[in-house]
């Protein structure tokens, strides 16, 4: 992310005058002053902030005496505020989409500079959302600028990908060449037939049957040959197309699975799905259909031009004179039509959305007696949509014939001029026919050609999206020689700092020592960094500073395979894959025996409810299968963790969403599970943590308290407050707490 913009000369001079002897650290633009959009700059030196606009210094904010820097995200813009000597000021306003991330860094830097005036500049690695060259936005969720990308690079990579399929992919081109040749030869033969045998005026129609027969045979056999070729071509192109897309999808999917969670979470599921499905489809369509078509149309266009020039240059002129006009008209027509159609689809979508909305909320509609209003609302939306469709169709039906007429304008000119020549005897009937046929060859691709640029750009965007993923290096990677260790379960968190965005730390200077076999309860308000800490211990992300050690080895040095195979996780929301219960339990170790599976289920208190199902362990669950309750799913997840037999067990709100009855069952199951393992459990309901050896209280990303239940109650800190609060709400009966204090 760019944090040092070049100042315009006037601003640079002003800044040099007012900030003598200070080191310039950042320089970022701001966009709004008063009611106007402006191109101003905010320069940050190690002593002060300078607001510059068109060579003038509007504001200087010294760091000495300043505190409370803050960004307020407002509607339509953001404001950067500061308090100096007790007086709040608006420093500047900027457009959020372009500069919010930049200013977050500046904010952090200002805070640091206020404390330590001579610190090093901080940076962030966040990608820009805009092309630095042209300022246009990148394609959604990518760093691709469709205007500035190197198109040849994309074509080259694409060509490299077709390895092994090239021969098959060449086939459409070979067929194309034949079909171009034939499309020119056939009218020529036909011209011969008409001129030599059919033309009534010359009177030669009688003799030479053999010659005429030859022409007939030629035409028929060419047609047959062409059809045979086209069958072959269809087969080959669907074959190569399918193989290509399958290879592409697999490569992409493999790559996606290997990427770290952080780069995957930056993108939405929908975006990733569309890259695997849609974008590869677009690439395949381009390579197997569009490209040969462009080739055929382009070549026939050129050949037709040359041939016609040789036959009759003037006539050729007649054909091409209306071309620019027709192309213009067609383009105009389609662009209006497309917009209108999109508007129509949009309205149709609205109708669908409304239907979906009311159907899913039908209980609310009925409860509040809003049926009539809903019907009225629906009637209006659907009427709007119907009217739009009507209008669109009328437009199309009126203008399409006109446009087609305009396209064929050239043919009429040819007919007119050709007939004049014909009557004068300057041209044979067959030749006229031939030229007319060629004119059609020129016109038919015209309409199609107007869509080529759009198809090409669609392909380029899709291809670069796919290549972007393919070329991404996983952020959390194994080092050169990762160690496979047998984990005992000692975890040392050494002074770690981490933020999903480097300028916004979620955890700061967190240190914890966990002994093998201990159960640690992690407590804190939501947003205090509990889940983040666990994500780091599982190494779904790498820490920014500090280190996490397991059995004295930095987790960066442990191979990911070894690490993950010895960790088990039970999350609040259990995800069951579509498949049988048996498969879901054995997800992490597919080789498990049936006995292991049943034992694990028994330990997890899941066996009984599984046996109640009609198909027992072979019952299909997941998206389209038998729907299990939250508690049942949770117990399957526990069985999954048990069979995995991890040395380190992580429970992230494992029982939060359950009723007390079910929780008891699960508590029992967990009780058996945590034995002899290092366990980290996050819980909101403190009763869940009654068996924890120690409790870790996190507050705003820092360790607030760490110790046994009794110690923390003694401290009367955050944990004490939480216990009291939950006690008030009845989540933890008083007697229970007292008993605990007594035992501790």
């Amino acid at each position, binding site marked *: 992310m760019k944090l040092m913009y070049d100042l315009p000369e006037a601003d640079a001079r002003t800044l040099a005058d007012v900030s003598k002897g200070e080191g310039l650290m950042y320089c970022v633009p701001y966009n709004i002053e008063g009611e106007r959009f402006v191109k101003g700059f905010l320069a940050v030196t190690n002593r002060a902030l300078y607001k510059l606009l068109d060579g003038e210094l509007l504001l200087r904010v010294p760091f000495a005496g300043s505190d409370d820097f803050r960004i307020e995200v*407002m509607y*339509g813009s*953001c404001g950067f505020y500061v308090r100096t000597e007790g007086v709040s000021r608006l420093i500047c306003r900027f457009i959020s989409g372009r500069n919010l991330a930049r200013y977050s860094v500046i904010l952090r830097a200002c805070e640091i500079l206020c404390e330590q005036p001579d610190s090093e500049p901080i940076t962030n690695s966040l990608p820009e959302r805009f092309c630095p060259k042209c300022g246009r936005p990148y*394609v959604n969720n990518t760093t691709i600028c469709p205007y500035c990308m190197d198109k040849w690079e994309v074509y080259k990579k694409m060509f490299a990908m077709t390895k092994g399929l090239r021969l098959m992919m060449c086939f459409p081109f070979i067929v194309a060449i034949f079909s171009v040749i034939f499309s020119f030869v056939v009218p020529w033969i036909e011209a011969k037939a008409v001129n030599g045998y059919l033309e009534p005026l010359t009177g030669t129609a009688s003799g030479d049957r053999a010659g005429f027969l030859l022409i007939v045979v030629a035409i028929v056999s060419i047609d047959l040959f062409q059809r045979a070729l086209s069958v072959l071509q269809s087969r080959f192109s669907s074959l190569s197309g399918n193989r290509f897309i399958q290879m592409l999808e697999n490569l992409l999917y493999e790559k996606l699975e290997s990427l770290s969670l952080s780069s995957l979470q930056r993108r939405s599921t929908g975006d990733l799905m569309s890259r695997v499905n849609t974008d590869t489809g677009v690439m395949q369509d381009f390579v197997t259909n569009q490209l040969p078509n462009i080739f055929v149309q382009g070549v026939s266009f050129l050949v037709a031009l040359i041939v016609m020039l040789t036959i009759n240059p003037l006539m050729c002129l007649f054909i091409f004179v209306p071309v620019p006009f027709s192309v213009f008209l067609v383009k105009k027509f389609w662009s209006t039509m497309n917009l209108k159609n999109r*508007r129509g689809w949009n309205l149709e979508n609205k109708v669908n959305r409304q239907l979906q909305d009311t159907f899913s909320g039908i209980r609310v509609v009925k409860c509040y007696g809003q049926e009539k209003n809903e019907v009225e609302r629906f009637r209006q939306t659907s009427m709007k949509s119907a009217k739009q469709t009507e209008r669109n169709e009328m437009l199309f039906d009126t203008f399409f014939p006109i446009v087609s007429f305009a396209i064929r304008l050239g043919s009429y000119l040819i007919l007119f001029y050709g007939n004049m020549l014909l009557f004068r005897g300057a041209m044979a009937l067959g030749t006229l026919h031939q030229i007319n046929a060629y004119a059609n060859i020129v016109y038919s691709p015209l309409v199609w050609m107007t869509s080529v640029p759009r198809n090409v750009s669609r392909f380029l965007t899709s291809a670069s999206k796919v290549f972007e993923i393919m070329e991404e290096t996983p952020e959390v990677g194994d080092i050169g020689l990762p160690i496979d260790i047998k984990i005992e379960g000692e975890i040392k968190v050494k002074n770690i700092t981490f933020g999903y965005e480097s300028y916004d730390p979620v955890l700061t200077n967190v240190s914890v020592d966990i002994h093998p076999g201990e159960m640690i309860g992690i407590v804190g308000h939501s947003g205090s960094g509990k889940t983040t800490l666990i994500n780091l211990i599982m190494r779904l992300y790498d820490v920014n500073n500090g280190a996490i050690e397991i059995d004295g080895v930095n987790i960066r040095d442990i191979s990911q395979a070894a690490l993950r195979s010895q960790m088990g996780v039970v999350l609040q929301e259990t995800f069951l894959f579509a498949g049988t219960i048996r498969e879901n339990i054995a997800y992490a170790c597919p080789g498990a025996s049936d006995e292991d599976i049943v034992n694990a289920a028994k330990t997890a208190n899941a066996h009984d409810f599984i046996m109640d199902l009609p198909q027992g362990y072979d019952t299909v669950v997941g998206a389209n299968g038998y729907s299990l309750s939250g508690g049942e799913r949770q117990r399957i997840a526990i069985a999954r963790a048990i069979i995995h037999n991890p040395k380190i067990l992580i429970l992230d709100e494992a029982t939060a969403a359950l009723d007390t009855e079910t929780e008891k069952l699960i508590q029992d199951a967990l009780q058996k599970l945590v034995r002899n393992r290092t366990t980290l459990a996050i819980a909101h309901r403190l009763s869940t943590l009654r068996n924890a050896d120690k409790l870790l209280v996190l507050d705003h990303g820092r360790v607030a308290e760490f110790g046994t239940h009794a110690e923390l109650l003694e401290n009367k800190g955050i944990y004490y407050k939480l216990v009291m609060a939950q006690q008030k709400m009845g989540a933890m009966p008083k007697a229970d707490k007292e008993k605990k204090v007594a035992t501790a």
Partner: protein
Amino acid sequence: MNEKEKKDELLDDGINLDDGKRTSIRLTPENASFFRSEGGLISMELRGESGEVERFERVAVFRSFPITAPDEFLSVREISVIKNEHGDEIGMIRHASDFDEETQRLFAEELDRRYFTPEILKIGSVKEKFGYSYWDCETTAGHIVFVINNPFSNIRAMTDGKVYINDIDGNCFTVSDPKKLDSASYRKIEIYL
């Protein structure tokens, strides 16, 4: 007072179940006065029932109905200690016009900043390319080129005919009455309405 005592007792015990939120009251010229602060923002004085005066170096003013009732139900808030969060609501103003003109001007300034929605005066060109729609416009805030992601959902006409346009940068533009634009501009936006 009784409640305050209770609160103090809780605090003594180290427990604060009440999360310290202040109760919002209705603000009128009788109990609240607003000034331009030294830094050009809004300062406020709040007079309690028993005459005690609470001073705020800076308050923030928000609209409850930014689109349908911009000058009514204004929410006056403290500046929160926690960044990225709005502070507690000190109170609400029923109508901006309850206050004198100077104060209204002060509100208008703050609100125009907080709800920055330049009005489009003329649409130079609209180009759709690579899935984005590029607009080149003259607005009350000057000339600007902005980009809309999905024009059909990001250009919305309200029931009163006013049009709101949200671009991908978080800008918001308005057209109070598209029919009053010149015909070339109207044709460009009409398709999306």
